[in-house]
Each structure stands twice: as C-alpha cells, then as structure tokens.
C-alpha cells in the first residue's frame, strides 16, 4: 500500500441518539445512544471492517453515513464535503457515490419488481445515460453486463426476486449497488444470512469488484474471521463507542484493548485440537443497556482490568475502603449472606462487615474506568485504542 493515502471518508465525533421516551408525561427522557461520538477514516480503495456485538451501533453507523438516519452530532466528511449538514437536495449526487448492500436478501428487494426494474431504479433516478444516443438500449446493455458480472444470466433480467435463492438475491443486491458506479459501498452484514458455502462466493466477488473498479468498502459484520479476511483495517465498537482501530493483521496478532482481546478469543476455532481453548477469555455478564448510559468506559462493567485490589495487612478495611465502589458482588464465605452488590459504594458498615468476615483482599473499581470516558488515542503507528490503562495492561512504555 502506498504511503500517501487519502481518506475518502472521515467520520468525526459522529453521534446518533434515538429518543425512546414513552408516554406523554414521562419526566425523564430515555435517550438511546446508539452511536456516541466515534471517529474513524477510510482510505480510498481499502476495506474498513466494523465489528462488534449486536447493539453496539455498527449498523447505525453505516445507516447514518448514507443519511438513512439524520446524525445527532458530528461530521461525515466524504471527499472533504460534510454530509452531516448538507441539505437533502445537495445530498442527491452523493447518494449515487455511496451505495449500500443490506443483510437480508429477502427483505431488501421489492418482490413486485423484476430484476431489471430493481437494477434500473438507480440508473433512472440518477439519469446515468442522459445525453446518450440511445439511453434505453445503453441501460439494457448495462443491466445485462451487471447481471453477468455478478454471475447471473441475461434471461434472469425479467424474473422476480422470489424465483432466486438467497445467494442469488444477494448478487442482485450487489448488481443494484454497482449500477450507479459508486465510490463507496456500505456492506451491512452482506453475508450473514447466507450459507457457509455461498459466503465465500460473495466475498470473492466483492474482492474482485474492488480490484477491478477501485471501490472502497465499509464492511459491517459480526463474523470476525470473515471480517479479518476481507478487511485492510478494522474498527471495534462496543455500546456506541469505538474501542480500537487498527490494521487487520495487527489487530488480530496483537489486540490492545481488553474488549478486543476477549472478543477475538471467543471466536470458535475450526480446529478441534487447537491450543487457543485453554487461554480463552470468557467474558462475564451481558452488554449493558445503551439507554442513558453512565459515564466512563462503556466496557468497564465487564472488563477484567477495571478494578484494583485493596489488601489489608492487619485484617482491617475500615479506612481504606470507605467511599470506594465494589467491583463485584461480595458474599460472606461463612454465613453466605450478601455483603454488597456490584458497583455499590462501600459504607463504614460494609467495611466493618468485610473486616469481620476476615477477607484478605477486596476488589474495588478503578475510578477512572467508571467516571471518565477514555479517548481513542494512537498507541503505536496506525493502531488506536480507547482505554485508560492500555499501557499497563499491555506492558507498553
């Protein structure tokens, strides 16, 4: 890859919030922070993978970039133009330059339109063959050419979507996206609904088109091995925040963020005797709700580094713990009684109970993780991570 790469798309502090308040008189607003201030850029001609668990905001990011959703805040710089503030009218030419391929090949094609109509819609809307000698014929030729390039036949042009299998429908979706000669294609889980043996066909096709037409892809998916395979660089999202951005090889070889480490180690490996199983990090708990999230690192409640241990030499915790927060639930080992729940402030009474129960050490939260949202910073060349303790965790200087 050459050194003077230019970003085609730059996303700066992008936010997309949804108001989930219910009822006319509800006092407290419920804001779902699907995407909450993320930054990344995509170079021309590369594939940028966006991964994360369901609800992390990866699809919302894709949809906000094409302005299917109006962004709440932030900038979407496409070729230097901010799409976030542009008017609908001025957005029109960019809708041709940015196309999208959807996850569900059954829901994303109109069942009442023929394949020709589906593919021609974009061509007609953007008047691609305006000024051409014979626009009708040029359009038909283009459609045939597209169908053949995605591995379908000319005679398929007059058929309806229900006559095709899932893999073939996804090919129609790809032909539709390519019809208007876009620069950037947002692929939102394009292969998740397909069978394993068909996935490779579609992935190879996407890669061929990229080489041939110099396309740029934003590839959104949760299948981490496939994302690694197709992407040049990858961003890892968690609950609306970007946790780590890096080249794909570097990310998989040396993940820096605790979440990325856990995520990558939970991929099931198609190798029964693999030694990875022994060192697997199985995350505790579930993803928190993105509605009115608390400040701090979004991953803190599940992070195994988000605590410090307070040890007591004389078996007394009275002073050292009061005012701190318990990292996990503590149960008295003798009586089985609950002493304190996770994330609750330790009072003098609780500290006394801990002392009486003769604990040797108690895990308390690292305050920074729970109070202060970490920024995405460059740790090493082109490798960014958002974690307060990234250096300690990875033994970096």
């Amino acid at each position: 890859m050459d050194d003077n790469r230019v970003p085609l798309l730059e996303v700066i502090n992008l936010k997309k919030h949804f108001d989930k308040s219910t009822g006319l008189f509800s006092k407290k607003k419920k804001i779902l922070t699907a995407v909450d201030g993320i930054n990344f850029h995509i170079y021309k001609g590369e594939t940028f993978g966006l991964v994360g668990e369901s609800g992390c905001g990866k699809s919302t990011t894709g949809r906000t970039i094409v302005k299917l959703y109006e962004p709440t805040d932030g900038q979407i710089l496409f070729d230097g133009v901010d799409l976030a503030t542009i008017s609908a009218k001025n957005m029109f030419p960019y809708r041709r330059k940015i196309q999208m391929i959807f996850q569900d090949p059954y829901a994303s094609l109109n069942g009442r339109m023929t394949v020709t109509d589906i593919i021609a819609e974009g061509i007609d809307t953007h008047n691609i063959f305006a000024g051409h000698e014979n626009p009708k014929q040029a359009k038909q030729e283009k459609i045939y050419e597209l169908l053949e390039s995605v591995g379908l036949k000319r005679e398929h042009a007059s058929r309806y979507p229900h006559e095709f299998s899932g893999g073939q429908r996804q090919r129609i979706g790809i032909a539709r996206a390519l019809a208007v000669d876009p620069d950037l294609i947002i692929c939102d889980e394009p292969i998740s609904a397909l069978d394993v043996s068909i996935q490779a066909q579609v992935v190879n096709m996407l890669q061929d088109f990229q080489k041939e037409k110099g396309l740029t892809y934003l590839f959104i998916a949760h299948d981490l091995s496939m994302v690694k395979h197709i992407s040049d660089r990858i961003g890892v999202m968690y609950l609306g925040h970007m946790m780590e951005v890096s080249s794909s090889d570097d990310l998989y070889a040396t993940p820096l963020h605790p979440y990325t480490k856990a995520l990558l180690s939970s991929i099931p490996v198609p190798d029964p005797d693999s030694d990875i199983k022994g060192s697997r990090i199985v995350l505790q708990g579930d993803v928190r709700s993105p509605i009115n999230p608390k400040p701090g690192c979004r991953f803190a409640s599940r992070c195994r580094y988000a605590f410090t241990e307070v040890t007591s030499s004389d078996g007394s915790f009275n002073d050292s713990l009061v005012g701190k927060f318990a990292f996990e639930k503590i149960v008295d080992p003798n009586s089985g009684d609950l002493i304190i729940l996770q994330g609750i402030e330790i009072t003098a009474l609780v500290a006394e109970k801990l002392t009486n129960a003769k604990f040797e050490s108690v895990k308390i939260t690292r305050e920074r993780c729970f109070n202060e949202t970490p920024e995405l910073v460059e740790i090493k060349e082109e490798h960014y991570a958002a974690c307060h303790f990234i250096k300690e965790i990875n033994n970096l200087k």
Partner: protein
Amino acid sequence: MNKKLLEVKNLKTSFYTHLGEVQAVRGISFELEEGGVLGIVGESGSGKSVTSLSIMRLIDSPGVIKEGEIIFDGVDLTKLKKSEIADYRGNEISMIFQDPMTSLNPVYKIKNQMIEVIKRHTDMTTAEALERAIDLLKQVGIPDPVAQINDYPHQFSGGMRQRALIATAISCNPRLLIADEPTTALDVTIQAQILELLKQLQKDTGMSIILITHDLGVIAEVSTNVIVMYGGLIMEKGTVQDIFYNPQHPYTKGLHKSIPKPHAKNDERLIPIKGSPPDLMNPPSGCPFSSRCDFAMEVCLTDAAPGYKISDSQSSACWLHDAESPVVEGFKKSKEVL
C-alpha cells in the same frame, strides 16, 4: 466404547406440501453412544433440523416419518403412541432451540414455565419444584436466581434466556439433549459462555448431546463426533479429528476451504463451492452434491454413493473411494461399504 444410547437407521422424513413432496431427510443412519457429543453440520435445507425433530417425534402434518427406525435405549421411538412419546420428551430427551425468545412464553414468569415442566415430569410439589428451578438457574450461571426467577422472559437478555431454557431442558436429568443451533442468535462473547456451559453440564451430568449447527468452529469446540449432512443425506461421518484433519468427502473438503483460516494471511483467497444447494422437491437421483462437485463422474449423476468405510470411526459417501474409480489425490480407496 460406551453403550449405544441412540441408533437411527435409514430415517426418511418428508413433507407433503401442496406443491409436492419435499424429501427433507432421505435415508440416514447414525448412532450416538452414552456421554458422546454428536455434531451435525450442514447448510440450510440439508435436513439437520428435521433429523432432530424426527428424533423428538415433533414432525407434524404435513410432515411424516416415512421410513426407518429411531432406537433410543432399545425402544423404537417411531413405533410409540403419542401418549408414550410424551414421557420421553423432557424426561429422557430434551431440546433447546435457536431463538430463545420464541421458545419462552412471554406472558408467564420464568418461574411458572420452569415449575410447569418439572411438575409434569416428577412428583414434586410446587414448593419443591421452585427450589429445584432456583438450583438449576444457579447451575447455569444466572446471577441472583432467587430474585430473577420472578422475571418475565423480556426482562432477560438473549444469553440469559438461553441459559434459562437450558436449565429447563436439563431439569429432569435427560439422557440426551438436542441443541438445535443454540448459539446462532447470540453474540460471539455470549456464544462462548453458552458453549462453555454446555460442555460443563455434559461433564457434570454425563448426558449425551446432539449439537446442530452450520458453524464448523462451534462443532470443533464441543463435539466428539461429527456428521456432515447435505441434501437430506449424510455425506461423511467420523470423529471430530477425522472430519477436521482428514476430511474425505469433496463437500467436507469444500466447506473447509470456503471458510477463512484463523491464522491465514489476509491475501489468501477463499475457494468457494460453486453453485447452490439442490431443490429437495425434486432431489437429484444421484449424489446431491454432484452438480457442485469438481470430481463428479457419470455414476455420481445417476446413483448416490454408499458410505465407504475409511477407518473404524470414519465413513464417506463418495464414489471416489471405490476401487474402480480413478485415483485422485487426497481420496482414500476403500473396500468396505457400510
């Protein structure tokens, strides 16, 4: 070798739709020993789910088990009456499904749904059943089960729902647990938790598991034995090591090549399997994979291959193993047909 728990012989299941007969399972045979974890891998429409539903006798009209035997602990389940099979479900054989939300009733508390199952299969009182249910929830790792058992399904996350379903499924100590794509709807970090849980429960209780999935990674994590299904037939079976390190059938080999290797370099191209799966309304007369197979011969188009024995644990249904077929690298010759 352990005692045989389940033996399926020449099972054929079809659905008679108004468009014609859909032959979902077209004559498969396999066995499962006590304490074994059998992975069934296949694409959508390969017949893997219908196989498991047939074992549970959950095939409803217009579906029919046309032929074959399903022998569970010496009893042929296909011959049992409806009332008799009900005693097997839950007690001896339990099942968990892909979507944990649709398997739970949204208007009943988790508590009521679990107690209902326990009381149906045992003589426990409601209070005893409640205690058992709380115990089970603790066993599957639900935090604070005493309080959470009073929740409704929508208050649980996807992973917790699947845990609650697993707890319900094992509540009567079944000897066989059928898990049909148990982690497909879950995130990868939650999937790791659930697979870990299934492995642990299998170790603790000694039950057998049939795990149905399309994900070769999941199969490799949990199974001891594997069946590869395609077009309603078994293409290959063997131990998990056989299937992953010494695959013999062209379809199994093709599957391995079409998924990215975890440690491969990025620029390595995937080798897809060309074409698409067969239509089970008019299944091909020969090998279902023949139209997509690089090695297809004339015989493949007319006759499905029998299972050639590759080793004591492995067999593969491909004509290339026959002594009269041309020699192709990577395909062992076999004299024995199962």
